[in-house]
Protein backbone atom coordinates (compact mmCIF):
# COMPACT_ATOMS: atom_id res chain seq x y z
CA UNK A 1 0.00 0.00 0.00
CA UNK A 2 2.70 2.44 1.00
CA UNK A 3 4.59 1.64 -2.16
CA UNK A 4 1.67 2.59 -4.40
CA UNK A 5 1.26 5.93 -2.62
CA UNK A 6 4.90 6.59 -3.42
CA UNK A 7 4.42 5.56 -7.05
CA UNK A 8 1.41 7.83 -7.38
CA UNK A 9 3.38 10.70 -5.97
CA UNK A 10 6.27 10.03 -8.34
CA UNK A 11 3.81 10.13 -11.20
CA UNK A 12 2.36 13.41 -9.92
CA UNK A 13 5.83 14.89 -9.78
CA UNK A 14 6.60 13.74 -13.31
CA UNK A 15 3.37 15.27 -14.53
CA UNK A 16 4.43 18.55 -12.97
CA UNK A 17 7.76 18.32 -14.77
CA UNK A 18 5.94 17.78 -18.06
CA UNK A 19 3.98 20.96 -17.42
CA UNK A 20 7.17 22.89 -16.85
CA UNK A 21 8.67 21.59 -20.06
CA UNK A 22 5.59 22.53 -22.04
CA UNK A 23 5.79 26.03 -20.60
CA UNK A 24 9.35 26.30 -21.88
CA UNK A 25 8.24 25.07 -25.29
CA UNK A 26 5.45 27.62 -25.47
CA UNK A 27 7.93 30.39 -24.65
CA UNK A 28 10.28 29.28 -27.40
CA UNK A 29 7.48 29.15 -29.96
CA UNK A 30 6.36 32.63 -28.89
CA UNK A 31 9.88 33.95 -29.39
CA UNK A 32 9.87 32.77 -33.00
CA UNK A 33 6.46 34.25 -33.54
CA UNK A 34 7.55 37.64 -32.23
CA UNK A 35 10.75 37.52 -34.29
CA UNK A 36 8.73 37.14 -37.47
CA UNK A 37 6.25 39.77 -36.35
CA UNK A 38 8.96 42.30 -35.49
CA UNK A 39 10.60 41.71 -38.84
CA UNK A 40 7.48 42.82 -40.61
CA UNK A 41 6.67 45.83 -38.45
CA UNK A 42 7.48 49.20 -39.94
CA UNK A 43 8.28 47.71 -43.32
CA UNK A 44 6.23 46.99 -46.38
CA UNK A 45 6.92 43.30 -45.95
CA UNK A 46 4.57 40.89 -44.26
CA UNK A 47 4.88 38.26 -41.60
CA UNK A 48 5.51 35.41 -44.04
CA UNK A 49 8.03 37.41 -46.05
CA UNK A 50 10.27 37.40 -43.02
CA UNK A 51 9.79 33.69 -42.62
CA UNK A 52 10.59 33.07 -46.28
CA UNK A 53 13.72 35.21 -46.16
CA UNK A 54 15.05 33.39 -43.13
CA UNK A 55 14.20 30.05 -44.73
CA UNK A 56 15.89 31.03 -48.01
CA UNK A 57 19.01 32.25 -46.25
CA UNK A 58 19.30 29.14 -44.20
CA UNK A 59 18.72 26.87 -47.18
CA UNK A 60 21.14 28.91 -49.27
CA UNK A 61 18.58 29.96 -51.90
CA UNK A 62 19.76 33.09 -53.70
CA UNK A 63 18.05 35.53 -56.00
CA UNK A 64 19.47 37.50 -58.92
CA UNK A 65 20.96 40.78 -57.76
CA UNK A 66 18.57 43.73 -57.59
CA UNK A 67 15.46 41.65 -58.25
CA UNK A 68 12.53 42.40 -55.89
CA UNK A 69 13.21 39.16 -54.03
CA UNK A 70 16.86 40.09 -53.68
CA UNK A 71 15.94 43.51 -52.27
CA UNK A 72 13.47 41.91 -49.91
CA UNK A 73 16.05 39.45 -48.75
CA UNK A 74 18.74 42.09 -48.44
CA UNK A 75 16.55 44.52 -46.49
CA UNK A 76 15.09 42.05 -44.05
CA UNK A 77 18.27 40.12 -43.49
CA UNK A 78 20.64 43.05 -43.07
CA UNK A 79 18.45 45.81 -41.65
CA UNK A 80 15.57 44.29 -39.75
CA UNK A 81 16.96 41.09 -38.36
CA UNK A 82 20.21 41.97 -36.51
CA UNK A 83 18.56 44.15 -33.83
CA UNK A 84 15.87 41.53 -33.38
CA UNK A 85 18.36 38.70 -33.03
CA UNK A 86 20.45 40.76 -30.65
CA UNK A 87 17.46 41.50 -28.47
CA UNK A 88 16.73 37.77 -28.38
CA UNK A 89 20.28 36.93 -27.36
CA UNK A 90 20.55 39.80 -24.88
CA UNK A 91 17.21 38.96 -23.31
CA UNK A 92 18.17 35.33 -22.93
CA UNK A 93 21.59 36.17 -21.53
CA UNK A 94 20.46 38.83 -19.07
CA UNK A 95 17.59 36.68 -17.84
CA UNK A 96 19.82 33.72 -17.13
CA UNK A 97 22.29 36.12 -15.52
CA UNK A 98 19.50 37.28 -13.23
CA UNK A 99 18.50 33.74 -12.37
CA UNK A 100 22.04 32.83 -11.42
CA UNK A 101 22.69 36.02 -9.46
CA UNK A 102 19.46 35.73 -7.49
CA UNK A 103 20.20 32.14 -6.51
CA UNK A 104 23.86 32.85 -5.73
CA UNK A 105 23.02 35.76 -3.48
CA UNK A 106 19.95 34.06 -2.04
CA UNK A 107 18.29 37.37 -2.82
CA UNK A 108 15.32 37.64 -5.15
CA UNK A 109 16.09 41.27 -5.88
CA UNK A 110 19.56 40.69 -7.21
CA UNK A 111 20.02 41.23 -10.92
CA UNK A 112 22.88 40.61 -13.34
CA UNK A 113 24.32 44.02 -12.50
CA UNK A 114 24.41 43.48 -8.74
CA UNK A 115 28.19 43.34 -8.53
CA UNK A 116 28.49 46.70 -10.27
CA UNK A 117 29.09 45.37 -13.77
CA UNK A 118 26.96 48.06 -15.40
CA UNK A 119 28.88 50.91 -13.80
CA UNK A 120 32.17 49.42 -14.99
CA UNK A 121 30.84 49.03 -18.50
CA UNK A 122 29.59 52.62 -18.43
CA UNK A 123 32.98 53.86 -17.36
CA UNK A 124 34.65 51.88 -20.13
CA UNK A 125 32.26 53.06 -22.80
CA UNK A 126 32.06 56.65 -21.63
CA UNK A 127 35.81 57.00 -21.33
CA UNK A 128 36.13 55.67 -24.87
CA UNK A 129 33.50 58.08 -26.13
CA UNK A 130 34.64 61.12 -24.20
CA UNK A 131 38.40 60.96 -24.05
CA UNK A 132 39.09 58.37 -26.70
CA UNK A 133 40.97 56.49 -24.02
CA UNK A 134 40.07 52.81 -24.15
CA UNK A 135 41.12 50.01 -21.90
CA UNK A 136 41.93 47.99 -24.99
CA UNK A 137 43.84 50.51 -27.12
CA UNK A 138 41.44 49.86 -29.99
CA UNK A 139 39.75 52.92 -31.39
CA UNK A 140 36.45 53.64 -33.09
CA UNK A 141 33.21 51.74 -32.69
CA UNK A 142 34.97 48.54 -31.64
CA UNK A 143 36.98 50.63 -29.18
CA UNK A 144 33.82 51.50 -27.29
CA UNK A 145 32.67 47.89 -27.26
CA UNK A 146 35.98 46.45 -26.14
CA UNK A 147 36.50 49.18 -23.60
CA UNK A 148 33.03 48.62 -22.15
CA UNK A 149 33.71 44.89 -22.06
CA UNK A 150 36.95 45.24 -20.14
CA UNK A 151 35.51 47.94 -17.90
CA UNK A 152 32.61 45.67 -17.02
CA UNK A 153 34.98 43.00 -15.78
CA UNK A 154 36.73 45.32 -13.29
CA UNK A 155 33.98 45.59 -10.65
CA UNK A 156 33.34 41.85 -10.74
CA UNK A 157 37.00 41.11 -10.19
CA UNK A 158 37.16 43.70 -7.42
CA UNK A 159 34.17 42.17 -5.66
CA UNK A 160 35.63 38.69 -5.92
CA UNK A 161 39.02 39.93 -4.75
CA UNK A 162 37.70 41.98 -1.84
CA UNK A 163 35.37 39.29 -0.56
CA UNK A 164 38.35 36.96 -0.28
CA UNK A 165 39.45 39.21 2.58
CA UNK A 166 36.27 40.20 4.29
CA UNK A 167 34.28 37.02 4.01
CA UNK A 168 32.26 35.62 1.19
CA UNK A 169 28.76 36.31 2.44
CA UNK A 170 26.15 37.47 -0.06
CA UNK A 171 25.44 40.59 1.99
CA UNK A 172 29.04 41.72 1.88
CA UNK A 173 29.18 41.08 -1.84
CA UNK A 174 26.07 43.14 -2.50
CA UNK A 175 27.27 46.01 -0.32
CA UNK A 176 30.70 46.07 -1.92
CA UNK A 177 29.06 45.92 -5.34
CA UNK A 178 26.94 48.93 -4.44
CA UNK A 179 29.95 50.86 -3.17
CA UNK A 180 32.00 50.09 -6.25
CA UNK A 181 29.23 51.09 -8.59
CA UNK A 182 28.84 54.39 -6.74
CA UNK A 183 32.51 55.03 -7.26
CA UNK A 184 32.52 54.14 -10.94
CA UNK A 185 29.38 56.15 -11.52
CA UNK A 186 31.03 59.20 -9.98
CA UNK A 187 33.93 58.78 -12.42
CA UNK A 188 31.43 58.51 -15.27
CA UNK A 189 29.74 61.66 -14.04
CA UNK A 190 33.07 63.41 -13.87
CA UNK A 191 33.85 62.47 -17.45
CA UNK A 192 30.44 63.45 -18.68
CA UNK A 193 30.34 66.91 -17.15
CA UNK A 194 33.81 67.84 -18.24
CA UNK A 195 33.19 67.01 -21.87
CA UNK A 196 31.37 68.95 -24.57
CA UNK A 197 27.65 68.64 -25.08
CA UNK A 198 27.73 66.39 -28.15
CA UNK A 199 29.90 63.78 -26.53
CA UNK A 200 27.76 64.02 -23.43
CA UNK A 201 24.73 63.18 -25.51
CA UNK A 202 26.48 60.25 -27.16
CA UNK A 203 27.58 58.91 -23.78
CA UNK A 204 24.10 59.41 -22.40
CA UNK A 205 22.58 57.50 -25.29
CA UNK A 206 25.01 54.66 -24.77
CA UNK A 207 23.98 54.27 -21.14
CA UNK A 208 20.29 53.90 -21.90
CA UNK A 209 20.58 50.65 -23.77
CA UNK A 210 19.62 50.24 -27.38
CA UNK A 211 19.80 47.62 -30.09
CA UNK A 212 19.23 49.87 -33.08
CA UNK A 213 22.01 50.22 -35.56
CA UNK A 214 23.52 46.85 -34.79
CA UNK A 215 24.69 44.48 -37.48
CA UNK A 216 25.53 40.84 -37.93
CA UNK A 217 29.12 41.58 -36.95
CA UNK A 218 28.02 42.28 -33.38
CA UNK A 219 26.44 38.90 -32.96
CA UNK A 220 29.09 36.13 -32.97
CA UNK A 221 30.94 36.97 -29.73
CA UNK A 222 27.74 37.65 -27.82
CA UNK A 223 26.07 34.54 -29.14
CA UNK A 224 29.04 32.32 -28.35
CA UNK A 225 29.33 33.53 -24.78
CA UNK A 226 25.58 33.40 -24.15
CA UNK A 227 25.29 29.86 -25.53
CA UNK A 228 28.32 28.73 -23.58
CA UNK A 229 27.07 30.32 -20.35
CA UNK A 230 23.59 28.96 -20.92
CA UNK A 231 24.92 25.44 -21.17
CA UNK A 232 27.23 25.91 -18.20
CA UNK A 233 24.43 27.30 -16.04
CA UNK A 234 22.16 24.45 -17.11
CA UNK A 235 24.79 21.96 -15.99
CA UNK A 236 25.25 23.50 -12.56
CA UNK A 237 21.60 24.38 -12.04
CA UNK A 238 21.17 21.56 -9.52
CA UNK A 239 23.98 23.14 -7.48
CA UNK A 240 22.36 26.55 -7.79
CA UNK A 241 19.30 25.02 -6.18
CA UNK A 242 21.27 24.26 -3.04
CA UNK A 243 22.27 27.91 -2.69
CA UNK A 244 18.65 28.92 -2.26
CA UNK A 245 18.48 27.38 1.22
CA UNK A 246 21.36 29.40 2.57
CA UNK A 247 25.09 28.91 2.85
CA UNK A 248 25.15 26.50 5.78
CA UNK A 249 22.67 24.11 4.23
CA UNK A 250 24.40 24.24 0.87
CA UNK A 251 27.70 23.40 2.50
CA UNK A 252 26.25 20.53 4.47
CA UNK A 253 24.84 19.08 1.25
CA UNK A 254 28.28 18.93 -0.25
CA UNK A 255 28.68 22.18 -2.16
CA UNK A 256 31.91 24.11 -1.90
CA UNK A 257 30.11 27.45 -1.80
CA UNK A 258 33.13 29.78 -1.85
CA UNK A 259 34.63 28.41 -5.03
CA UNK A 260 31.27 27.83 -6.63
CA UNK A 261 30.22 31.40 -6.06
CA UNK A 262 33.50 32.77 -7.36
CA UNK A 263 33.28 30.66 -10.52
CA UNK A 264 29.68 31.66 -11.14
CA UNK A 265 30.49 35.33 -10.64
CA UNK A 266 33.31 35.07 -13.16
CA UNK A 267 31.04 33.42 -15.67
CA UNK A 268 28.40 36.07 -15.07
CA UNK A 269 30.92 38.86 -15.51
CA UNK A 270 31.86 37.61 -18.96
CA UNK A 271 28.27 36.88 -19.89
CA UNK A 272 26.90 40.25 -18.92
CA UNK A 273 29.91 42.15 -20.21
CA UNK A 274 29.59 40.52 -23.63
CA UNK A 275 25.99 41.66 -23.87
CA UNK A 276 26.02 45.17 -22.48
CA UNK A 277 29.17 46.20 -24.26
CA UNK A 278 27.13 45.96 -27.48
CA UNK A 279 23.74 47.10 -26.26
CA UNK A 280 24.37 49.44 -23.34
CA UNK A 281 22.61 48.91 -20.06
CA UNK A 282 19.20 47.34 -20.47
CA UNK A 283 17.54 47.07 -17.09
CA UNK A 284 14.78 44.99 -15.62
CA UNK A 285 14.79 42.00 -17.97
CA UNK A 286 17.33 40.23 -15.76
CA UNK A 287 15.44 41.15 -12.62
CA UNK A 288 11.89 40.38 -13.62
CA UNK A 289 12.13 37.38 -15.90
CA UNK A 290 13.20 34.87 -13.24
CA UNK A 291 10.31 36.01 -11.04
CA UNK A 292 7.75 35.56 -13.78
CA UNK A 293 9.16 32.14 -14.53
CA UNK A 294 9.28 31.02 -10.92
CA UNK A 295 5.76 32.26 -10.40
CA UNK A 296 4.59 29.92 -13.14
CA UNK A 297 6.77 26.83 -12.77
CA UNK A 298 8.18 26.99 -9.23
CA UNK A 299 11.70 27.49 -8.02
CA UNK A 300 13.66 24.47 -9.28
CA UNK A 301 16.56 26.05 -11.18
CA UNK A 302 16.92 23.08 -13.50
CA UNK A 303 13.73 24.32 -15.13
CA UNK A 304 13.95 27.99 -14.19
CA UNK A 305 17.24 28.37 -16.09
CA UNK A 306 16.02 27.21 -19.52
CA UNK A 307 12.64 28.83 -19.00
CA UNK A 308 14.36 32.12 -18.16
CA UNK A 309 16.34 31.92 -21.36
CA UNK A 310 13.16 31.52 -23.38
CA UNK A 311 11.13 34.00 -21.38
CA UNK A 312 13.91 36.62 -21.29
CA UNK A 313 14.29 36.38 -25.06
CA UNK A 314 10.55 36.72 -25.42
CA UNK A 315 10.32 39.76 -23.12
CA UNK A 316 13.19 41.65 -24.72
CA UNK A 317 12.21 40.89 -28.30
CA UNK A 318 8.71 42.08 -27.42
CA UNK A 319 10.19 45.26 -25.94
CA UNK A 320 12.05 45.71 -29.20
CA UNK A 321 8.79 45.25 -31.06
CA UNK A 322 7.13 47.92 -28.92
CA UNK A 323 10.07 50.22 -29.51
CA UNK A 324 9.61 49.70 -33.27
CA UNK A 325 5.89 50.29 -33.02
CA UNK A 326 6.57 53.60 -31.25
CA UNK A 327 8.88 54.69 -34.06
CA UNK A 328 6.27 57.01 -35.60
CA UNK A 329 6.06 58.91 -32.29
CA UNK A 330 9.74 59.09 -31.55
CA UNK A 331 12.88 57.04 -31.21
CA UNK A 332 12.34 55.29 -27.90
CA UNK A 333 15.19 52.85 -27.30
CA UNK A 334 14.57 49.37 -25.99
CA UNK A 335 16.14 50.27 -22.63
CA UNK A 336 13.51 52.92 -21.98
CA UNK A 337 10.70 50.61 -23.08
CA UNK A 338 12.02 48.02 -20.63
CA UNK A 339 11.94 50.60 -17.81
CA UNK A 340 8.35 51.55 -18.53
CA UNK A 341 7.27 47.93 -18.72
CA UNK A 342 9.53 46.70 -15.95
CA UNK A 343 9.09 49.27 -13.20
CA UNK A 344 5.38 48.60 -12.65
CA UNK A 345 5.97 44.84 -12.67
CA UNK A 346 8.73 45.36 -10.14
CA UNK A 347 6.40 47.42 -7.96
CA UNK A 348 3.78 44.71 -8.21
CA UNK A 349 6.29 42.05 -7.20
CA UNK A 350 7.22 44.02 -4.09
CA UNK A 351 3.70 44.70 -2.97
CA UNK A 352 2.72 41.10 -3.61
CA UNK A 353 5.60 39.55 -1.70
CA UNK A 354 4.40 38.51 1.71
CA UNK A 355 7.09 39.80 3.98
CA UNK A 356 9.42 41.56 1.59
CA UNK A 357 12.26 40.33 3.73
CA UNK A 358 15.98 40.00 3.23
CA UNK A 359 15.92 42.11 0.15
CA UNK A 360 19.22 43.84 0.74
Amino acid at each position, binding site marked *: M*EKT*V*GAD*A*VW*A*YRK*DVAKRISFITICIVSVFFVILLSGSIGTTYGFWDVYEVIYERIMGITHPTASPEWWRSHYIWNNSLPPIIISVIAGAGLAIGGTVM*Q*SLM*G*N*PLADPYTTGISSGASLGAVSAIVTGFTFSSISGEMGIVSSAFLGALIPAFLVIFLTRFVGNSPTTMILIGVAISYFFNSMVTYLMITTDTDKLQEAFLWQIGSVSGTGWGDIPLMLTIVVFSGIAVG*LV*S*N*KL*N*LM*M*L*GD*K*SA*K*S*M*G*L*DIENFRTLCLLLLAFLVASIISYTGIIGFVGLITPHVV*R*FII*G*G*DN*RFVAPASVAMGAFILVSANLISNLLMPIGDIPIGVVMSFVGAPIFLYLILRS*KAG*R*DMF
Partner: protein
Amino acid sequence: MKIDIKEMGFGYTATPVLKGINLAIGGNQLVSILGPNGVGKSTLIHCINKILSPKEGVVLLNDVDVSEITIKDLAKEIGYVPYSTTTSFPLSVVDTVLMGRHPHSKWKTTDEDLQKVYETLDLLGIEHLAMRSFNQLSAGQHQKVMLARGLVQEPKVLLLDEPTANLDIKHQMEVARIMRDLAHEKGITVIMISHDINIAATYSDNVILMYEGSIFAVGTPHEVITKENIKKVYGVESEVVDFRGKPHLVLIDEKLKNLELPKDSYVSMRAQETAAR
Protein backbone atom coordinates in the same frame (compact mmCIF):
# COMPACT_ATOMS: atom_id res chain seq x y z
CA MET B 1 30.77 5.53 12.36
CA LYS B 2 32.97 7.14 14.91
CA ILE B 3 33.89 10.74 15.43
CA ASP B 4 37.05 11.69 17.29
CA ILE B 5 37.67 15.28 18.24
CA LYS B 6 41.13 15.98 19.59
CA GLU B 7 42.21 19.17 21.34
CA MET B 8 39.98 21.20 19.09
CA GLY B 9 39.63 24.96 19.47
CA PHE B 10 37.81 27.61 17.48
CA GLY B 11 37.27 31.35 17.58
CA TYR B 12 36.01 33.94 15.11
CA THR B 13 38.39 36.48 16.60
CA ALA B 14 41.17 36.16 19.14
CA THR B 15 38.67 35.19 21.84
CA PRO B 16 38.05 31.47 21.60
CA VAL B 17 34.50 30.19 21.29
CA LEU B 18 35.60 26.61 21.79
CA LYS B 19 38.74 25.44 23.52
CA GLY B 20 40.32 22.10 24.28
CA ILE B 21 37.47 19.96 23.01
CA ASN B 22 38.16 16.26 23.33
CA LEU B 23 35.32 13.97 22.38
CA ALA B 24 34.83 10.49 21.01
CA ILE B 25 31.40 9.59 19.72
CA GLY B 26 30.65 6.25 18.10
CA GLY B 27 27.99 3.65 17.55
CA ASN B 28 24.36 3.78 16.61
CA GLN B 29 22.90 6.05 19.18
CA LEU B 30 21.18 9.33 19.86
CA VAL B 31 23.47 11.83 21.57
CA SER B 32 22.17 15.14 22.89
CA ILE B 33 24.30 18.21 23.42
CA LEU B 34 23.05 20.33 26.30
CA GLY B 35 24.25 23.64 27.65
CA PRO B 36 23.24 27.28 28.15
CA ASN B 37 22.87 29.74 25.28
CA GLY B 38 26.06 30.90 23.59
CA VAL B 39 28.18 28.13 25.02
CA GLY B 40 29.39 26.94 21.59
CA LYS B 41 27.03 24.06 20.86
CA SER B 42 26.28 25.11 17.31
CA THR B 43 29.89 26.03 16.70
CA LEU B 44 30.93 22.52 17.79
CA ILE B 45 28.52 20.98 15.29
CA HIS B 46 29.68 23.31 12.53
CA CYS B 47 33.26 22.25 13.17
CA ILE B 48 32.34 18.60 12.74
CA ASN B 49 30.91 18.99 9.24
CA LYS B 50 33.37 21.60 7.98
CA ILE B 51 30.98 24.53 7.88
CA LEU B 52 33.68 26.04 10.07
CA SER B 53 37.29 24.99 10.18
CA PRO B 54 38.79 24.51 13.64
CA LYS B 55 41.64 26.84 14.55
CA GLU B 56 43.49 24.08 16.35
CA GLY B 57 43.21 20.35 16.85
CA VAL B 58 41.60 17.86 14.51
CA VAL B 59 38.25 16.23 13.86
CA LEU B 60 38.52 12.62 12.71
CA LEU B 61 35.76 10.71 11.00
CA ASN B 62 36.58 6.99 11.07
CA ASP B 63 40.22 7.95 11.70
CA VAL B 64 40.33 10.26 8.67
CA ASP B 65 40.86 13.97 9.21
CA VAL B 66 37.71 15.71 7.93
CA SER B 67 39.76 18.56 6.50
CA GLU B 68 41.14 16.03 4.01
CA ILE B 69 37.73 14.78 2.90
CA THR B 70 36.13 16.71 0.04
CA ILE B 71 33.00 18.50 1.04
CA LYS B 72 30.91 16.40 -1.31
CA ASP B 73 32.21 13.12 0.09
CA LEU B 74 31.69 14.42 3.60
CA ALA B 75 28.07 15.21 2.73
CA LYS B 76 27.51 11.53 2.00
CA GLU B 77 28.63 10.70 5.54
CA ILE B 78 27.35 13.62 7.59
CA GLY B 79 23.95 15.25 7.29
CA TYR B 80 23.04 18.51 8.95
CA VAL B 81 19.80 20.29 9.76
CA PRO B 82 20.28 23.97 10.63
CA TYR B 83 18.37 25.73 13.37
CA SER B 84 16.17 27.62 10.99
CA THR B 85 15.96 27.84 7.25
CA THR B 86 14.26 30.50 5.27
CA THR B 87 14.19 30.97 1.56
CA SER B 88 12.85 33.82 -0.49
CA PHE B 89 12.19 31.55 -3.45
CA PRO B 90 9.02 29.63 -4.23
CA LEU B 91 10.24 26.11 -3.58
CA SER B 92 7.86 23.22 -3.09
CA VAL B 93 8.44 20.74 -0.28
CA VAL B 94 9.49 18.07 -2.77
CA ASP B 95 11.98 20.44 -4.38
CA THR B 96 13.43 21.26 -0.98
CA VAL B 97 13.75 17.69 0.21
CA LEU B 98 15.10 16.55 -3.17
CA MET B 99 18.10 18.80 -2.65
CA GLY B 100 19.21 16.43 0.07
CA ARG B 101 19.85 13.85 -2.66
CA HIS B 102 22.55 16.07 -4.15
CA PRO B 103 25.60 14.23 -2.79
CA HIS B 104 24.29 10.95 -4.22
CA SER B 105 22.65 11.83 -7.48
CA LYS B 106 23.59 13.53 -10.68
CA TRP B 107 21.73 16.30 -12.46
CA LYS B 108 18.66 14.27 -13.28
CA THR B 109 16.11 13.28 -10.68
CA THR B 110 15.63 9.51 -10.80
CA ASP B 111 12.57 7.58 -9.70
CA GLU B 112 14.69 6.16 -6.90
CA ASP B 113 15.39 9.67 -5.58
CA LEU B 114 11.71 10.53 -5.65
CA GLN B 115 10.82 7.25 -3.99
CA LYS B 116 13.22 7.98 -1.15
CA VAL B 117 11.88 11.50 -0.76
CA TYR B 118 8.32 10.28 -0.45
CA GLU B 119 9.24 7.50 1.95
CA THR B 120 10.94 10.01 4.20
CA LEU B 121 8.05 12.43 4.03
CA ASP B 122 5.78 9.54 4.91
CA LEU B 123 8.00 8.55 7.83
CA LEU B 124 7.70 12.04 9.27
CA GLY B 125 3.98 12.15 8.52
CA ILE B 126 4.14 15.11 6.15
CA GLU B 127 3.51 13.43 2.81
CA HIS B 128 0.36 15.47 2.36
CA LEU B 129 2.53 18.62 2.24
CA ALA B 130 4.62 17.35 -0.68
CA MET B 131 3.39 19.78 -3.33
CA ARG B 132 2.86 22.71 -0.96
CA SER B 133 5.10 25.74 -1.05
CA PHE B 134 7.84 25.64 1.57
CA ASN B 135 7.25 29.27 2.50
CA GLN B 136 3.61 28.72 3.36
CA LEU B 137 4.30 26.11 6.03
CA SER B 138 4.28 26.67 9.78
CA ALA B 139 7.49 26.75 11.77
CA GLY B 140 6.95 23.20 12.97
CA GLN B 141 6.36 21.95 9.46
CA HIS B 142 9.51 23.75 8.29
CA GLN B 143 11.41 21.85 10.92
CA LYS B 144 10.09 18.53 9.71
CA VAL B 145 10.79 19.31 6.06
CA MET B 146 14.37 20.19 6.89
CA LEU B 147 14.63 17.01 8.92
CA ALA B 148 13.40 15.07 5.89
CA ARG B 149 15.99 16.81 3.76
CA GLY B 150 18.69 15.73 6.19
CA LEU B 151 17.41 12.15 6.17
CA VAL B 152 17.22 11.64 2.39
CA GLN B 153 20.87 12.53 2.33
CA GLU B 154 21.27 9.03 3.87
CA PRO B 155 24.09 10.11 6.12
CA LYS B 156 25.75 7.89 8.68
CA VAL B 157 25.99 10.79 11.07
CA LEU B 158 23.16 13.27 11.41
CA LEU B 159 23.75 16.60 13.11
CA LEU B 160 20.67 18.48 14.26
CA ASP B 161 20.60 22.03 15.60
CA GLU B 162 17.61 22.17 17.93
CA PRO B 163 15.29 20.03 15.84
CA THR B 164 12.50 20.27 18.39
CA ALA B 165 12.69 24.00 18.98
CA ASN B 166 9.50 25.10 17.25
CA LEU B 167 7.40 22.06 17.90
CA ASP B 168 4.59 21.42 20.37
CA ILE B 169 5.09 18.67 22.93
CA LYS B 170 3.46 15.95 20.83
CA HIS B 171 5.65 16.71 17.85
CA GLN B 172 8.72 17.13 20.05
CA MET B 173 8.21 13.63 21.35
CA GLU B 174 7.50 12.30 17.88
CA VAL B 175 10.62 13.81 16.33
CA ALA B 176 12.83 12.70 19.22
CA ARG B 177 11.41 9.19 19.01
CA ILE B 178 11.95 9.00 15.25
CA MET B 179 15.55 10.15 15.74
CA ARG B 180 16.14 7.52 18.38
CA ASP B 181 14.56 4.76 16.29
CA LEU B 182 16.56 5.80 13.24
CA ALA B 183 19.75 5.69 15.25
CA HIS B 184 19.04 2.24 16.58
CA GLU B 185 17.47 0.62 13.52
CA LYS B 186 19.21 2.23 10.55
CA GLY B 187 22.61 2.44 12.15
CA ILE B 188 23.00 6.20 12.19
CA THR B 189 24.74 8.27 14.81
CA VAL B 190 22.39 11.15 15.59
CA ILE B 191 23.80 14.16 17.42
CA MET B 192 21.29 16.81 18.38
CA ILE B 193 21.46 20.09 20.22
CA SER B 194 18.62 20.50 22.65
CA HIS B 195 17.40 22.93 25.23
CA ASP B 196 14.78 20.61 26.62
CA ILE B 197 16.66 18.62 29.23
CA ASN B 198 13.79 16.25 29.88
CA ILE B 199 13.30 15.38 26.21
CA ALA B 200 17.04 14.85 25.93
CA ALA B 201 17.08 12.71 29.06
CA THR B 202 14.13 10.61 27.96
CA TYR B 203 15.26 9.80 24.43
CA SER B 204 19.05 10.10 24.32
CA ASP B 205 21.42 7.24 24.87
CA ASN B 206 24.18 9.58 25.88
CA VAL B 207 24.39 13.23 26.79
CA ILE B 208 27.10 15.86 26.40
CA LEU B 209 26.95 18.88 28.69
CA MET B 210 28.85 21.97 27.58
CA TYR B 211 29.94 24.95 29.62
CA GLU B 212 31.89 28.04 28.55
CA GLY B 213 33.29 26.65 25.33
CA SER B 214 34.38 23.32 26.77
CA ILE B 215 32.92 19.92 27.47
CA PHE B 216 31.70 19.85 31.07
CA ALA B 217 30.47 16.28 31.33
CA VAL B 218 29.67 13.32 29.10
CA GLY B 219 27.94 10.02 29.76
CA THR B 220 24.52 8.49 30.15
CA PRO B 221 21.66 10.81 31.08
CA HIS B 222 21.87 9.54 34.65
CA GLU B 223 25.54 10.35 34.93
CA VAL B 224 25.34 13.81 33.42
CA ILE B 225 22.00 15.21 34.47
CA THR B 226 22.56 15.66 38.16
CA LYS B 227 21.60 18.35 40.61
CA GLU B 228 25.21 19.46 40.96
CA ASN B 229 25.92 19.70 37.22
CA ILE B 230 22.76 21.66 36.53
CA LYS B 231 23.61 24.04 39.35
CA LYS B 232 27.13 24.52 38.04
CA VAL B 233 26.31 24.92 34.35
CA TYR B 234 22.96 26.68 34.35
CA GLY B 235 23.14 28.23 37.78
CA VAL B 236 19.69 27.04 38.79
CA GLU B 237 18.49 24.90 41.66
CA SER B 238 16.78 21.69 40.73
CA GLU B 239 15.83 18.26 41.88
CA VAL B 240 16.57 15.27 39.67
CA VAL B 241 14.15 12.40 40.14
CA ASP B 242 14.29 8.96 38.65
CA PHE B 243 11.27 8.17 36.50
CA ARG B 244 11.05 4.80 34.70
CA GLY B 245 14.81 4.49 34.73
CA LYS B 246 15.45 7.94 33.26
CA PRO B 247 16.44 11.10 35.11
CA HIS B 248 13.80 13.77 35.22
CA LEU B 249 14.54 17.36 36.03
CA VAL B 250 12.28 19.35 38.31
CA LEU B 251 13.20 23.02 38.53
CA ILE B 252 13.11 24.82 41.84
CA ASP B 253 12.98 28.58 42.09
CA GLU B 254 14.34 29.43 45.51
CA LYS B 255 13.66 33.09 45.02
CA LEU B 256 9.97 32.50 44.54
CA LYS B 257 8.64 33.64 47.91
CA ASN B 258 4.92 33.88 48.00
CA LEU B 259 3.13 30.80 46.79
CA GLU B 260 -0.26 31.95 47.93
CA LEU B 261 -2.92 33.31 45.58
CA PRO B 262 -3.19 37.10 45.91
CA LYS B 263 -6.52 38.19 47.28
CA ASP B 264 -9.17 39.40 44.80
CA SER B 265 -7.49 37.67 41.89
CA TYR B 266 -9.53 35.34 39.82
CA VAL B 267 -9.77 33.72 36.43
CA SER B 268 -12.95 32.01 35.51
CA MET B 269 -14.86 30.94 32.46
CA ARG B 270 -17.71 33.30 31.86
CA ALA B 271 -21.06 31.77 32.58
CA GLN B 272 -22.48 32.21 29.06
CA GLU B 273 -19.47 30.61 27.43
CA THR B 274 -19.57 27.72 29.83
CA ALA B 275 -23.23 27.21 29.07
CA ALA B 276 -22.58 27.32 25.35
CA ARG B 277 -20.26 24.42 25.69
